[in-house]
Structure formats: structure tokens, C-alpha cells
């Protein structure tokens, strides 16, 4: 009987070690950042690499990573996280180095750095949160905003004649010979979260195995920027954004390079 009670009290869910014990949760209701940061923390815990991982923070809402990860963290200027990561990784090749960037950082101001880091085949991992707008500054259009998307700088919707076409950063990275694994996932239902975690884990494992540059783009909700409810935001990802930024493995040559 006692044994059974003990079994019932078995710990099934806890805070990953990589997340600090006391922190102020910085994100808006319905934001995808919190989910992805937790997934990364779970992966780091599961791979047992907390004590040898260096995280590279970037600019945007993603910078909140600095506040609640129990990791060595090096900050970077807007768009330059892959360069900082390159410097760290070359100086300390046996450490695990990853960048955590938004679409403003990785696909807009830092597109050049993202692409060149991929071309160099830098053995690092990039997790790119794509919420198709500049969340931190109040919801302006970014390079990845989809056609018709309403933002504070495209009030009548993104018009290709005026604002150009959305950047599909994962597809661009996939074209680089040095990129070994590129996947786009989304955060909009439990299955998609499980898939995202698997992609993140693979991206870290690739680095541990010395395979080269891995890039995981995660479509995330930004209810505040999109001026949609959290639930409507998830529908927007599923019905609108993922039609343009298509989900799936875009490139995987990890078993070829092994």
C-alpha cells in the first residue's frame, strides 16, 4: 500500500536545472518564447551539458534569456550573435555554443551573419524564434512578415510593391553547404511542441557530434504584436504563417557527413 502511494507521488514534472530558481517571467500571455526557452533548457538538462554550454544572447524579446538561464551567457549586438558564437566556439571548441535569436535578429539585421556562419559550417546551434514581427519594439514589420500581415508599420497589410516579400531564412540557410541540419517547426499545439523539442535536441546533438551548423526556426505567437488573442494567435500560425514559412525538415545531411 505504502509502495503504491510512493509511486503515485513520483515526480513527473519539474523546473529544468538550466532555468534559474527565481526569475521574473518576462513574456506576454501567449508568447512562444517561454515555451521554446523551456524546451532548450530541458534538452540541455537531458544531454547533461549545462556545465559546458555557453549561450549567446541577442537583441529583441529573445534577450530575456539572459534573465533566467543558469548558464554562462555572452551578449551580442543586434544581429551579431552568430559572430559572437563563432568567436566563443573557436576559442573553446569543446564547449557547446548556441545562439537564441528572433527573426529581427537572425533574418533581418543579421541575415548576413546568419548566412556566412552557415557557409563557414561553424559547429554551433542557432535557434531562431520567428514571430514575423519586431515584438519588443511594439510590433513593427520584420523581414519575415507575411504578405498581408498587419503591423504598426504595415497598417494596411504587408504589400509586396511597397514592403517587398518575406524572407524565408531557413530555406536560405539550407542553401549553404556548411549547414547540416535545417528544420522549421512551430509552437501551436502539443504535437508541434514535441516536434520542436526533438528538432532542438537534434540540433544540439549535431554539434556534440561535430557535424557543423544546425538551424532550427520556430514559428511562435506574438499576441501583443499581432493584436490577436493567444488562442487566435495559435490559429494564425497554423492557418496563415505556416502556409508561407512552411514547416518541416528543409535539409538534413547529418548521416551523410558522419
Amino acid at each position, binding site marked *: 500500500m505504502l509502495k503504491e502511494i510512493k509511486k503515485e507521488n513520483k515526480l513527473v514534472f519539474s523546473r529544468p536545472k538550466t532555468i534559474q530558481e527565481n526569475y521574473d517571467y518576462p513574456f506576454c500571455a501567449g508568447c512562444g518564447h517561454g515555451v521554446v526557452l523551456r524546451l532548450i533548457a530541458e534538452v540541455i538538462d537531458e544531454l547533461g551539458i*549545462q*556545465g*559546458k*554550454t*555557453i549561450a*549567446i*544572447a541577442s*537583441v529583441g524579446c529573445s*534577450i530575456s534569456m*539572459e534573465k533566467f*538561464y*543558469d*548558464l*554562462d*551567457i*555572452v*551578449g*551580442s*549586438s543586434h544581429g*551579431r550573435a552568430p*559572430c*559572437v*558564437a*563563432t*568567436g*566563443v*566556439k*573557436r*576559442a*573553446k571548441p569543446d*564547449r*557547446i*555554443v548556441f545562439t537564441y535569436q528572433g527573426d529581427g535578429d537572425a533574418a533581418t539585421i543579421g541575415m*548576413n*551573419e546568419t548566412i*556566412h556562419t552557415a557557409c*563557414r559550417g561553424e559547429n554551433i546551434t542557432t535557434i531562431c524564434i520567428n514571430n514575423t514581427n519586431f515584438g519588443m519594439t511594439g510590433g513593427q514589420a520584420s523581414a519575415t512578415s507575411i504578405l498581408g500581415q498587419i503591423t504598426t508599420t504595415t497598417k494596411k497589410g504587408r504589400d509586396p510593391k511597397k514592403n517587398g516579400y518575406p524572407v524565408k531564412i531557413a530555406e536560405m540557410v539550407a542553401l549553404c553547404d556548411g549547414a547540416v541540419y535545417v528544420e522549421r517547426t512551430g509552437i501551436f499545439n502539443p504535437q508541434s511542441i514535441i516536434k520542436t523539442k526533438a528538432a532542438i535536441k537534434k540540433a544540439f546533438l549535431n554539434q556534440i557530434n561535430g557535424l557543423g551548423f544546425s538551424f532550427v526556426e520556430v514559428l511562435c505567437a506574438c499576441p501583443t504584436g499581432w493584436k490577436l488573442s493567444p488562442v487566435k494567435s495559435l490559429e494564425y500560425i497554423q492557418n496563415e504563417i505556416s502556409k508561407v514559412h512552411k514547416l518541416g525538415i528543409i535539409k538534413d545531411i547529418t548521416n551523410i557527413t558522419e
Partner: protein
Amino acid sequence: MTSKILMKGNKAIAQAAINAGLECYFGYPITPQNEIGEFMSDEMPKLGRTYISAESELAAVNMLIGAASTGTLSMTSSSSCAIALMQEAISAMATAEIPGVIISVMRAGPGLGNITPSQGDYFQATKGGGNGDYRTIVLAPSTINEAVELTYKTFYLAFKYRNPAMLLADGMLGQMMEPVELKPFDLKIPDSSEWEADGIGEGNNKRPFRKLVSLHMQGNDLILLNEKLQRKYGTIQENEVMYEKYMADDADILITAFGTVARVAKSAVEKARSLGIKAGLFRPITLWPFPSEELKDAAKGKKTILNIELNEGQMMLDAKAAIDGVCPIELLSRLGGAIVKEGEIIEKIKELSSKYTCLKVISDNPSKNESQDSSRGHIKC
């Protein structure tokens, strides 16, 4: 004693950095400093060290931030308009207290300008184009031998103070060859184990995790950080000033000049002395911290200071503030890649000698010399 070899300035600087223990070099081509990157691409891999030809100077300086954050001796090198691209990162480096080393070999500006020698980036180096109240340690060699010595010192000071440090040379120094004595590196790089974010955090040796970041949003964090940085800058100003005085003590006319110009000025001083004019030289070696107190002391009792630069008097603003009116100061400048010649300096010294040796010249035409009013008490016939 090591033997002397004939070497180009850029190569000597690169070799000195390697001697100092440089582990990571990040660069992007720009004239007149290309030999540094080329040398590194040959030599660093041989030693099992890192050389990366970055996609831009923005990338290079941010790679520098990454590598230096781990306590690794790292540097980048560049020039003028490309150093301009690095300013945001240099400010971030100063804020997060990361000891990155930057070699700046100046070309002529403004804009893309051209590749001829200039000192047009004194402001850029010492005042910084980056945002906020930060300082970069700036050392300015005037010979290739000194460039070697100061390259060593640049790494040392960067780590001693956890601050970006720059070696500021001009295109002439980078491109010319002269006999160099490559002395072995004799400084001890200060220990970085207390601050480096090298990824060996809690769980292994139980040190707290470290965050080298430049964003400080919480409460009064940024106020406290600024106060801390200013205290550090005060300590640097107090302890690290370097300068050279040459025939300065008994001089009537004191030249202030840095870098290669100071070499030309030195021979002009000797010529002037042979003509019976007491000229001397005060050469700041650290441009920041600027030797303000030392220059003020040296300026006392002088008839005038002649400030010579290959720019429109950028250092003169610091010199003026330093001497605080104890004597007049005049400018001899050359812009756009022109070099100041020894003969021109001697002519100027002669002109100043007659202007300031006879009080009559000034009192005859008071309106024209209004600007020298404050210093008249120091002019002796």
C-alpha cells in the same frame, strides 16, 4: 639581445601579437593594414591557433567579443572607415568589460578617403564613435620597434583592466620597413579566471554562472555600472599614462605630436637647436589616457606650444584642455594624406620664434593677437 631584422610595420605588429600569445585573429581586408591579416593567415594555423577572414568588420569585431569573453587572447585589425563599423561593438565591449585588442592602421579620410597616411582618427580612437560614456585605451607608436613593444602592452592593459585596447598606427608606420628588434614578450597577461565566461559553470567547479552582457535593465544596475566604469577609467588615467619628452625641459617652443609625425618633429627639433632655437618635443604615447598633467607641467614657462598633426588639430583639443592656458598653442596640420615635412616644421618654428620672442610683435597689433591674451604673462623677451 635579439638580432635586428628588416621588417614591415604591419608584419612586425602581427608577429608581436603572436609573440604575446594571440590565440584568435579575426579580420577583413582593408588597405593599409592587409599584411596583418595575410601574415595571420599563414602563421596562426601553423601554431594551431585561429584565423578567420570574417564576412565584414562588424562580424570580425563581434567574433573578437566572443573569443575575448572566454579569456582568450584575441584581436582584430582594420583601418579608418572600417574601424567606424566596429564602434557599436567597442562600446559593448567596454560595457561588458571584455578585453578585445584592436589594431587600427589609419588611412586618410573622411569617408572612404584614400590609402595615404593620416592621423584623422584620433577622435575615433580616443573619443569613440560608439555610444555612452566608455573609454578605449589607445597606444600610439612612432617607430616599428615601439609598435612591437606597444602591441605587447596593448594586450597586457586590455587584460589588466578588462577593457578594449587599441594600437593606433598610421599607414606610414604600417607600410614602411625598418630594422626591428623583436624582443620576446616579457609581460605577464593578468589572470582571467575570475571573470571569463568559458562555459565551465556550476556543477563542475561550483563557480556561479557568468553573464558578460551590455544590457542592464534592472533597477539602478546601469547607474552602478557607469560609476564602476568611471572609477576604473580614473585608475587607468592615474597609472597608465605614457609619454616621451625630448629636449623639452629647457625649450622655448614645445612641439606636441604623436605617431610618425613625432619622428619628423624630433629631427626638426635637432635642426632648430642647431640654428640656436630652443625647441623640444612632448610626445603622448597613450592617447587615452592622455598625459594631461604631464603636458601641463611641461608647458609651464614655454613661449608657445606647436601642435603638429596629420588632421585638423584633433589632439590639440586635448592638449589645449590639458595646458589650461599656461601658454599659447598653435597648430600645424596636413590633411588628406599629405605628410608634414621637416623643412615645414623648421619654418614654422622660426616663425613662432620671432613671433613669441619679441613682445613688441604682439603689442603692436593687439587686436590680431587677442586669442593670446590669456597667455601674455608667459611671453618673455
